[in-house]
């Protein structure tokens, strides 16, 4: 076992040595593993062009988020070299992968590619794909939380504009729910883990965070308790009837797009689901607004949800890099952004073409989010799935009408224990 470990470490070190290592072993086939995402669909359409110009063959494996995660667990754990390029979630798996040395160091590659221009990438996303001053991934997709709402229902209720504050959101949701039986005032994710990311903007806007400045767990603060009570209360009191505590975005989005809810807080990157007439019954009446302000202002998350990295064990790193460079080039990011996938390149956001295809109110909301946004939407730890379950417990307790304050205290203890364990 020790020998095997030594061998892998040695292999890792040589591979780290420089971009010119292992050229002779490079295969002409690049194996790319991608998640089911609009970005993936767009990149697949453009692929023949890349294959023609580079002379490389790209083999794509496409999986759902959970399956992708499981696949990485199995393959990276086994030290498999048959993954070259990996689409991964910097905030979810980044720390774990970096700690396990699964991701190749790309620092030299990104800084030496002058035309490609690494400096063009936004700081927040870049921070999330950098570990101990080493770049291990290139951000692909950014996300901000915005408010989806139904213009027709607001008009009917005599509400002139979308809620500017969380208090207004609550009042408006109550009013609409009361006026329209069978329609929820508010819907959002309810699954313990799934809800955490969307709850985070409520937490920040109420003035809290998962971890405080000194690195201690902070989910039992007054702000956090209020945020839990608000989010859970909105769903419990004004949410869909018989609401389950298993909803992630597909279920919550379905309720909204079936015309069964007035307000919905969700990632902007999913907006096409609501505006596409083929998927949404409310495509012509959906509106977007910046995340409503709490006592601390409007503080939605602004995060890179996906990035591309290279498997440390890959024997085809140079060609893998060629693929990444192409897929994250200015042209591709622009093309993707026009197709509805917010990218991480500043120049594309500054280019009017980059926001031309977005609904105007959505583009405006995103502009607000990128200015006030917080760079994380979940606790930034190594054991993210465990941490999400802990900090998500008070959310589902609030939804099911249990004692939120007690639940937050209990979760605080468990979360602090997890942090202590990681800092050992």
């Amino acid at each position, binding site marked *: 076992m020790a020998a095997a470990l030594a061998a892998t470490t040695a292999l890792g070190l040589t591979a780290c040595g420089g971009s010119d290592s292992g050229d002779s072993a490079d295969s002409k086939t690049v194996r790319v593993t991608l998640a089911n995402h609009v970005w993936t669909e767009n990149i697949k359409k453009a692929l023949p062009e890349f294959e023609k110009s580079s002379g490389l063959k790209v083999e794509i494996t496409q999986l759902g988020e959970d399956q992708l995660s499981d696949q990485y*667990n199995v393959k990276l*754990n086994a030290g498999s070299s048959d993954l070259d390029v990996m689409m991964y979630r910097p905030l979810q798996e980044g720390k774990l992968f970096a700690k*396990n040395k*699964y991701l190749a160091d790309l620092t030299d590659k990104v800084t030496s590619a002058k035309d490609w221009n690494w400096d063009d990438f936004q700081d927040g996303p870049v921070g999330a794909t950098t570990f101990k001053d080493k770049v291990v991934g290139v951000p692909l997709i950014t996300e901000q939380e915005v408010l989806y709402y139904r213009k027709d229902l607001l008009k009917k209720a005599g509400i002139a504009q979308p809620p500017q504050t969380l208090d207004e959101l609550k009042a408006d949701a109550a009013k609409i729910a009361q006026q329209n039986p069978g329609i929820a005032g508010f819907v959002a994710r309810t699954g313990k*883990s799934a809800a955490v990311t969307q709850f985070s903007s409520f937490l920040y806007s109420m003035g809290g965070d998962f971890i405080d400045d000194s690195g201690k767990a902070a989910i039992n603060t007054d702000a956090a308790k209020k945020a839990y009570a608000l989010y859970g209360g909105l769903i419990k009191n004004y949410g869909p009837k*018989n609401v*389950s505590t298993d909803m992630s975005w597909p*279920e919550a989005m379905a309720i909204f797009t079936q015309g069964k809810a007035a307000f919905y807080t969700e990632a902007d990157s999913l907006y096409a689901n609501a505006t596409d007439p083929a998927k949404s019954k409310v495509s012509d009446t959906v509106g977007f607004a910046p995340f409503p302000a709490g006592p601390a202002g409007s503080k939605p998350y602004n995060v890179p949800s996906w990035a591309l990295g290279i498997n440390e064990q890959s024997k085809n790193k140079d060609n893998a890099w060629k693929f990444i460079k192409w897929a994250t080039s200015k042209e591709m990011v622009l093309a993707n952004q026009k197709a509805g996938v917010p990218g991480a390149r500043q120049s594309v956001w500054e280019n009017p073409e980059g926001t031309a295809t977005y609904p105007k109110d959505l583009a405006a909301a995103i502009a607000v989010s990128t200015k006030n946004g917080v760079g994380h939407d979940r606790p930034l730890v*190594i054991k993210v799935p465990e941490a999400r379950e802990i900090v998500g417990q008070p959310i589902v307790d609030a939804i099911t009408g249990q004692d939120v304050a007690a639940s937050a205290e209990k979760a605080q203890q468990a979360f602090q224990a997890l942090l202590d364990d990681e800092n050992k």
Partner: protein
Amino acid sequence: MAVQTPAHHAAPARSAPTPGWARWANRHMKWLFAGPAMAFVAVLIIFPVGWTVYLSLTDAEGSVRADKSFIGLGNYLDVLTDTDRFWPAVGRTVAFTGVALLFEVVLGMAVALLLWKPFRGEKWVRAAILLPLVATPVAVGMMWRLILDPNIGFANQALGWFGIGPQPWLSGQKTALMTTAMIDVWQWTPMVVLILLAGLTSLPEEPHEAALVDGTTGWQRFRYVTLPMLMPTVIVAILLRGIDAIKTFDILYATKGKGGGSFHEVETLNVYAYGLSFDYNEYGIASAVLVIFFLIIVGSMWVLTARRKEDS
């Protein structure tokens, strides 16, 4: 024939003496033939089980290739004293298996008895009953998830036609586990029907005729003639279905997702172990749970087979 046979046998004698390897092969024939299967078992069963036992004695987490140290029975101690996740998961595993098995055997027996005597359209009925069996459990889980959705599902809509209010089904903390057990019943009762039907059709007719002559009721014939004779088959059905039900994963995962729902409503041992390894990357503890689970399955199999021997 008689003439040819000796000539046929004599043929090898005329050629060169049997080479050494062939003689060796002849002597070790049984090992040679069993070899590939044994290698297969060793590689695909014994090694993983051994590796799991090894991991269960270490503090492996994050990555199985990362440094890990031997911590003896620490993981087992942690697991066996965990009243938060482990023991409730054991309880759910037992409850799920017990309820599913009970319904499957009782319903399966009823259906098998109905199908026992030939009738018109028998083939069609049998084919229809087998349909759930051929569907993939994950697809079955997703289908039921849609049907039972609290807001847009068909089940609550159908209840509404009869004036019954919407039920929480999968979304209720108290109802979720039993709902998944019923999905299991829906899918796997046909298998029990098949097994019991095979047993029924092979029963001798005479004892029944004798009982009829004695003027017994249908229930008496079933209770004192059919059932005792069928018992070995029933035990086989319970054994096969029980092992399958206790390790159910796909239906639970497809309907409630990771951790068996937000309150771990349907988290059985299998779902728990999966979450520990694939979600938490706690390979040491996950392995300990799996070893305990393995022992539970082997133990219950042993009890059932011992019972079966007694009966036969």
